[in-house]
């Protein structure tokens, strides 16, 4: 993260607890202008709480929330330069579509003519140009979703917060909305902070993802970084599918697992340190048993449309998940090959800061 760019929103050592229960543990986070950020984590990990502290619905127990370098801890929600799209949309049932979108503008005493113009623009932006006169109860869930987005965007916020806005939509609509949201964000140049528990959604839409667990940000980075170089077991498991195998770091660029040693691209660890190895199912290629770096026995397979999902076991009893375009024979041994850079080594209990420092050290060499 470049230090010379002033972030729009910064959370500094933010903690939140209810009684003895700690929801957020020392959260540090910076949002730059015009980027799409995602908070990703299982339910109850505190991601919505982060959103609420930025929106001003929840106050922090410790730490600072800053907008443009100003601490806004005590600024109430109605004076903050952010707007929110809620999980349940929170549309006002007593107002129609256009009145819902105009709600915030009316409160801000924007002139009538300008309200009409901006409402029409906002509705056109979410492809609901002709829906202004409809009652909220008359439109579908997907359309309500769009109204909620239009209602927030019409305020021209610097940051748009989205709290699992797609979770109530069906799979097809969700996918369409992912594209639309991404396009909206890029064309408007507004910072989006998107909360979700769906890793596919996060990978598809984000410039940067923060993976959370139990009130902590475990790892932040681009989707590719997080996918290719997960910091620990939890992140590797949560983002995409993975084979996580215990092993040992023999020396720099040499790792041992399933009783064999392999060349790898990782370094900076103690010799013979116990580690975990991540191999993504799509990085494994099936070859004849004799030619494989590893030999595993096929247990079962499922046809997934564009690939076969094969479950196999090695001699140590580790389960291996393999994605292959060709089917395998159940009960038969197969060979697996992979490139050195497909192996990702994770130290046990490494913090994000230590991880980044180690990566920088040996990548500079």
């Amino acid at each position, binding site marked *: 993260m470049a230090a010379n760019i002033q972030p729009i929103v910064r959370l500094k050592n933010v903690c939140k607890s209810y009684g003895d229960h700690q929801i957020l543990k020392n959260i540090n986070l910076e949002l730059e202008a015009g980027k799409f950020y995602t908070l990703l984590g299982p339910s109850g990990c505190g991601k919505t709480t982060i959103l609420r502290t930025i*929106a*001003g*619905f929840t106050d922090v127990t410790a730490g600072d929330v800053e907008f443009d370098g100003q601490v806004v801890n005590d600024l*109430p*929600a*109605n*004076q903050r330069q*952010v*707007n*929110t799209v*809620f*999980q*349940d*949309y*929170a*549309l*006002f*049932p*007593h107002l129609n579509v256009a009145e819902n979108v105009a*709600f*915030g503008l009316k*409160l*801000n005493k924007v002139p009538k003519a300008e309200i009409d113009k901006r409402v029409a623009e906002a509705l056109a932006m979410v492809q609901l140009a002709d829906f202004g006169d409809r*009652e*909220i*109860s008359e439109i579908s*869930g997907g359309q*309500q*979703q769009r109204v909620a987005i239009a*209602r*927030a965007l019409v*305020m021209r916020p610097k940051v748009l917060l989205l709290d699992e806005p797609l*979770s*109530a939509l069906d799979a097809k609509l969700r996918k369409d909305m992912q594209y639309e949201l991404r396009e909206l964000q890029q064309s408007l140049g507004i910072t989006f902070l998107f909360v979700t528990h769906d890793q596919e959604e996060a990978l598809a839409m984000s410039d940067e993802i923060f993976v959370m667990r139990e009130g902590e940000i475990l790892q932040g980075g681009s989707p590719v970084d997080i996918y290719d170089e997960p910091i620990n077991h939890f992140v590797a498991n949560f983002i995409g599918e993975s084979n996580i195998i215990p092993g040992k770091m023999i020396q720099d660029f040499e790792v041992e697992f399933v009783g064999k040693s392999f060349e790898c691209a990782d370094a900076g660890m103690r010799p013979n340190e116990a580690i975990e190895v991540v191999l993504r199912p799509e990085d494994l290629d099936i070859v004849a048993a004799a030619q494989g770096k590893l030999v595993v026995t096929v247990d079962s397979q499922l046809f997934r449309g564009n690939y076969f999902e094969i479950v196999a076991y090695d001699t140590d009893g580790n389960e291996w998940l393999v994605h292959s375009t060709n089917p395998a024979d159940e009960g038969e041994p197969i060979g697996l090959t992979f490139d050195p850079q497909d192996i990702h080594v994770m130290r046990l209990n490494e913090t994000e800061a230590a991880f980044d420092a180690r990566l920088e050290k040996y990548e500079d060499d």
Partner: protein
Amino acid sequence: MSIRNFKWRNLYLWFVFIVLYAPIIFLIVYSFSKGETMNNFHGFTWAHYQDLFADSRLIAIFLDTLLVALLSSILATIVGTLGALGISQTTRAITKNTLLSLNNILMVSPDVIIGASFLIFFTALKIPLGFGSVLLSHIAFSIPIVVLMVLPKVQEMSRSLLDAAADLGANSWQLLSQVTIPYIMPGILSGFFMALTYSLDDFAVTFFVTGNGFSTLSVEIYSRARQGINLEINALSGLMFLMALILVIGYYFINQYSSRHRHASTRGRRK
């Protein structure tokens, strides 16, 4: 088989309605009867209605009753709505349950006891009995009704509606006036109409606190009926029945209207 069942069911329904409505219809029919008793129908006349409208005391009482009902239900609606909002905002379960129980006790306790206690209360405080005492007691027994009608709407309202409004720049007053009140309006109207009907037909409580000189319709009818049958009362009953009918129909249409606006925001709610 099903056709036979169907017929029996209909018959039963008609029987129940006839039993329920026969006395009222009987009363109304005799309001058009010539003569002074309800023993026989002596032919059609509007005479009793003419007497009724010539009876300035009765008309004054009718207007007083209406005034008490309107004033008490408006004030009770305001107090009761604020009460419901307050109860819904209590965070501790025990406080909320205590407040609700105190509210419900007033609903279920017999009117006679409430009336008697008001009488004792007013005399102890040396509040003169009359219009004021009747109004106060009507407000008091209407508040719990309003609370009970408004509270479900308040609790049904998603918390995120208020967050959304604040997010869009609403201050506390705007939250109340532009989000909460419109949302719970159907409950407020139901509460108002319930309070209105309770006040209009209350006898027991009013009977204790009217004192001399001031009277409401139900108390007046009671005291006149004790002096002997007067068909003017039948005419009055007929008019009151008509008024109740209009109120019910009005209430029905308001409900119809507000249910068209509902249903939104309940969709797609999770967590």
